[in-house]
């Protein structure tokens, strides 16, 4: 049985269920307890689990991410919420050095089973320093996993898997999607990390997207279908590990590929996928892989300029038309 719930509630259910299942799991971050989370993701969790497991912190990202890593090394299962992934930059040494390299540096002695999660991506008129897309920059680092759900059901299933994972998992949520409703099963389930999902099928072009841009891809595909261009839309769901099999299978069928990615174009997720597709599907491609990214500028503050700078369905449509010689 499934019911419709919001993305934020799906995230909360994942955390709540895992906290009931495993007493080592706890949630820590700014405003997560008393205020129910800056974006109301942890609504009611303080009452349910008490202040020992739902922990409000001072504004010290270095502090609480570092503490979380230590707690994970002692066998606990911390979930660390960044109000925004933008603020994880304050604690980059903890997040990118200590968490993903501890196992390696300790010769396998200390694992860091931690989840870092929070809002990622622009679109909320928050100014350039508060509108980070960290995926391309952070995914460069070995030792971490990265999930980026686009729908409530995946948000829940992926986050549950992340909490159970023995390695550090970075969960990238979009503030713009938190109120999105979707069907989520009543009964328990896990979504495996590292498996993409085909959201729509078509023979003319493969569109690969992650997180919020999946919605732009679907919107574009619906529009393109009206003029007879049918697309496979692949919701990547995980960035590390990356499900190249699903992508390659689709490209071998469609012979065209567009990647939609909300990071900046240089050395981006789209660049990486584009390189990999060209490596494994070179002979199948009728055109080079097309990339749709942010424009290569910091996020503007004005809302219309910000929208113009971000990927959107219009840009995806143009890219698909170009990739399929349908201009």
């Amino acid at each position, binding site marked *: 049985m499934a019911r419709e719930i919001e993305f934020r509630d799906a995230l909360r259910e994942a955390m709540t269920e895992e906290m009931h299942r495993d007493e080592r799991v706890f949630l820590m971050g*700014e*405003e997560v307890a*008393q*205020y*129910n989370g*800056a974006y109301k993701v942890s609504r009611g969790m303080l009452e349910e689990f008490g202040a020992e497991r739902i922990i*409000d912190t*001072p*504004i*010290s*990202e*270095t*502090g609480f991410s570092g503490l979380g890593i230590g707690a994970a090394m002692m066998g606990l299962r911390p979930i660390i919420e960044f109000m925004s992934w*933008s*603020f994880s*930059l*304050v604690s980059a040494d903890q997040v990118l050095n200590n968490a993903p390299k501890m196992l390696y540096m300790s010769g396998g002695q200390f694992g860091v089973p931690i989840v870092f999660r929070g809002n990622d991506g622009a679109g909320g*008129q*928050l*100014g350039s*320093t*508060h509108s980070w897309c960290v995926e391309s920059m952070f995914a460069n680092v070995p030792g971490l996993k990265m999930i980026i759900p686009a729908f409530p059901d995946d948000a829940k299933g992926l986050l549950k898997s992340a909490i159970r994972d023995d390695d550090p998992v970075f969960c990238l949520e979009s503030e713009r999607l938190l109120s999105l409703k979707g069907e989520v099963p009543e009964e328990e389930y896990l979504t495996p990390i590292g498996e993409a999902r085909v959201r729509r099928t078509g023979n003319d072009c493969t569109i690969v997207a992650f997180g919020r841009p999946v919605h732009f891809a679907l919107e574009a595909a619906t529009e393109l279908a009206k003029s007879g261009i049918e697309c496979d839309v692949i919701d990547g769901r995980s960035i590390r590990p990356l499900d190249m099999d699903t992508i390659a299978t689709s490209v071998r069928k469609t012979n065209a590929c567009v990647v939609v990615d909300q990071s900046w174009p240089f050395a981006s997720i789209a660049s990486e996928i584009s390189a990999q597709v060209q490596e494994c599907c070179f002979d199948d491609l009728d055109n080079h892989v097309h990339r749709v990214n942010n*424009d*290569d*500028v*910091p996020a*503007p*503050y*004005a*809302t*219309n*300029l910000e*929208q*113009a*700078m971000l990927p*959107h369905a*219009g840009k995806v449509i*143009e890219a698909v038309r170009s990739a399929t010689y349908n201009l």
Partner: protein
Amino acid sequence: MDTKPVQLDNIDVLQVLNEEGMVDTTKAPPLTHDQLRRLYVAMVLTRKFDSRMLAMQRQGEMGTFAPNLGQEATQIGQVFPLTADDWFAPSYRSFGAQIWRGWSMEQLLLLWAGYHEGFPPPEGVNDLPFSIVIGSHVLPAVGVAMGMAQKKQQHCVTVNFGDGAMSQGAVNEAFNFAAVYKAPCVFVCENNGWAISTPLQRQAATESLAVRGIGFGIPSIRVDGNDILAMVAATTTAAERARAGQGPSLIEAVTYRMSLHTTADDPTVYRQEEHVDPWHQRCPLLRFERYLNRESILTEDECRRIADECEQRVLEARAKFREMAKARPEEIFDFVYHTMPPELIEQKKDYLSRLARKGLNP
């Protein structure tokens, strides 16, 4: 040797002007009547601007911003002693101080409505950009101060941040650097009791934040931040020390955020009106007005006239803002680099041609 741990007693709060508007003349800074009037006008203008901007935000004309209500004395007091050669590093809640420093209100409206024209400090105003990332601007401000000292300039930098920012590592590193290198700066921690919904007690285990400065070897003082005269006295001394090469000072201005954290916040979720009530009595404007009236520096009539004039100035700024508020889409490529690199020129060309084809929001 005595093994008892050192105990720092609670630090007294410097107050010159009490809630009834009575002045402690032994501590009062030497200000002319004209200076006192200017301070009063600036505080009234800040309040009028704040409430107008809130109304505009509620009507959809303004982006998210952080209101100032109740913090006017802290705002104006911290910048009062600064000369045009001194620098000021504001926080996102510093528009009162920015107006004093020479920002036009229409420009601040542009800024908070999201137009790039709002961002650059006006010609001749030595202000730094503020940071939305908490505490991030404090180290650069100390860097500016150290740079000044290296250039043998005898000016100072005042940097403003909140009680919450005191928890950031970067801010504590800034204190240490400034102390060790005797950087000519004045740290103003605007302790308004809250960091969004987090009260001070969850931010620090000490009652005062000034106590931190002492640990770094920085002369530190707690000031009644709703007392404009105490603020002026403390910041004047600190700025003079800095300019004389005697190093940084920390001023903890104790005030209260009477309004919202930002326009995206609803404080009824985490605090009761009873907590806010006592602060109406401590209003920085009310006590200053009482004092000015009693001393016949400004009559009640004059105060009313000033209020009307300030309201008028704010409305004029709004009118100018409405004239100016037009986004130029091509500007998103400006200022990424000093000289636009070829690939960005190419992108800009593509972008403009797609805008020509599709309109701004295709």
